[in-house]
């Protein structure tokens, strides 16, 4: 016999697998790296050709992201005296002074409210619906489930015009509530289907034991079913959040002021000055919440997507 084994990969196979994984990692991480790096470049470095990999980092992009600035003539600058803060110093190089905060903070907060709000609502409604579908005799259950899924059979943006008109009539345009409802409507079918799968896997005996132990149906649901569905809820929540956090098309169409989220706002930062570092800085900050959320729930996510395949 040679050293051949069915279960253990040969060193060559391991090498090839390693290389493939490394290659894939590079392909996915380089754009991210580039965005983060661009956020710390000066505007001229950002558009330099050939692209600069080594550069002097500056916080200019971040300062520009969070502020609005006005240009002044030298006399006025003279009158102001030396810059008071480090960020004042940065903008002075361009003969400008900070005239106020930018709207980035508000837009970012909108994203947080709408993204997490709709995720919460999708999960809340989705869990209840999935539980009902999983446990109770629902008339026309299969048809209803199919109907719920059918809302995802076309790209949501295909119904943008009717939604636009509907929102205008109902006064939901450019409101947080409107966007939360919209994203929830899109996410909920996915949530119901995913969660139903998870809840189906939880043996009914657990709830029945709780019922017999003296708990009501609803207590049994949230004290026994919910903790065990945590894995499924976490992974479903990540999918919902990623969608609503990153959604661009509806956000452009339906929000412009009060409820505008970060995705349509960030590209407008570029303005006339070709301020790529500020755009990259905004994008970097925008990536962080989903990343943190995903890392926090990573344990659940990994178990979640292999759920059912591996039985305890």
């Amino acid at each position, binding site marked *: 016999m040679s050293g051949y084994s069915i279960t253990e990969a040969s060193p060559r196979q391991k090498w090839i697998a390693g290389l493939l994984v490394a290659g894939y990692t590079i392909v996915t991480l380089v754009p991210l790296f580039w965005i983060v790096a661009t956020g710390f470049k000066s505007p001229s470095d950002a558009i330099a050709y050939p692209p600069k990999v080594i550069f002097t980092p500056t916080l200019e992009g971040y300062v520009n992201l969070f502020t609005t600035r006005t240009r002044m003539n030298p006399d006025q600058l003279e009158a102001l005296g030396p810059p008071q803060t480090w960020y004042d110093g940065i903008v002075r190089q361009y003969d400008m002074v900070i005239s106020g905060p930018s709207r980035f903070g508000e837009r970012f907060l909108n994203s947080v409210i709408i993204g997490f709000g709709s995720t919460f609502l999708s999960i809340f409604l989705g869990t209840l619906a999935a539980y009902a579908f999983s446990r109770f005799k629902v008339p026309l259950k299969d048809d209803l489930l199919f109907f719920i899924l059918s809302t995802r059979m076309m790209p949501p943006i295909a119904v943008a015009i009717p939604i636009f008109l509907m929102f205008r009539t109902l006064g939901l345009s450019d409101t947080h509530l409107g966007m939360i409802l919209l994203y929830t409507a899109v996410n909920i079918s996915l949530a119901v289907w995913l969660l139903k799968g998870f809840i189906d896997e939880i043996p009914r005996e657990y709830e*029945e034991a709780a019922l017999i132990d003296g708990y*009501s149906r609803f207590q049994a649901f949230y004290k026994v079913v919910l903790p065990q569905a945590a894995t499924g809820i976490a992974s479903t929540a990540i999918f919902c959040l990623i969608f609503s956090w990153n959604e661009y098309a509806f956000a452009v169409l339906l929000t412009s002021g009060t409820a505008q989220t970060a995705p349509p706002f960030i590209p407008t930062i570029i303005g006339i000055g070709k301020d790529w570092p500020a755009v990259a800085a905004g994008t970097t900050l925008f990536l962080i919440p989903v990343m943190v959320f995903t890392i926090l729930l990573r344990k659940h996510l990994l178990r979640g997507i292999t759920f059912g395949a591996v039985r305890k």
Partner: protein
Amino acid sequence: MAQIVIRNLRKEFGDFVAVRESDFTIEDGEFFMLLGPSGCGKTTTLRMIAGLELPTSGQILLDGKDVAQVPASARDIAFVFQMFALYPHMNVRRNISYPLVSQGMPRAEVRRRVGEAAGILGIEDILDRPVGGLSSGDRQRVALGRAIVREPKAFLMDEPLGALDAEFRERMAEELRALHDRMGATTVYVTHDQLEAMQMGDKIVVMNRGVVEQWGTPQDIYDFPATMFVADFIGSPPMNFLRFDEQVRAGSRTVRLSGVEVPVPQTREATSGARAALGVRPEHVRLSDDGAYRGDVIAVEYLGTTQIVTLDTPNGDLKARIASSDPVKVGERVGLSFVTQTLSLFDAETGRALALERESVRGREVRETTHG
């Protein structure tokens, strides 16, 4: 503790009738077995007693009060599930105390009760372990702990030993029975294993296709099966049926098997048609050279002190359990006789036993079983 009376209980799932017109009584403190083949409605019956399933019609009297439509949480009954249903996100102590917490019991009292239950079951040392890594025996004990800690009116157990391996089953069965004897709690226990039922139960109800065929003490059911199904289901090997096509009349003292008159206890009723069966337990068959009724030995199975002899008779195959010391050879033709007072007679058309006048069997007063 409680008496449970099942009256005319019926359960339909859509068009399918899972349990029909059941009647039996579980006395206070009894260890009561629900026995029957797979799919006969044992679990459904038990779940109705627990309140997990609401009956289509009929009554469940718990200490005289009809609870048929009362929700599970209000019945004060404990249930031990086949796969234990321990909450995987809680440790042993929390699993056991969970039913008490629901009643809003003070913490100190909960601790005391959990400690007590753990003591009874001998699981004090694993109280703070997660349930995930427990052996199946310990899981079983924790599940029992969760049941006994409440001091409920009754315990319901659905094949509680089904998930254990054969060796362990026996030990756990003894433990369970000992636990019951110590606590004296009314217990309803579902099993499809007739041996387990005979060994552990004070009373047994035998179900088949949603119908209660018979209920009574293990001895009653063994000695006087009410139906051919029960006779066939209980005992290993089961009761033999010697079928014959002749109407049995009320008051007769013999039946004719292929021309040979065989004495039976005097009948009190007649068969409805011309098909009948004589029921005889293997251990009540005697091999004797002078018997007029004869059969050919076709197989011999040696079991240590006894042996099972399979005979080909004019009325079908028959198994006899005789001492190993009796010499029998395959191919031999032997005469057969039966212990008259132990015989049963069945109406082969309805499958029901005929009422017979009996003297005592095993020195007990004989009651004719009329259930079923």
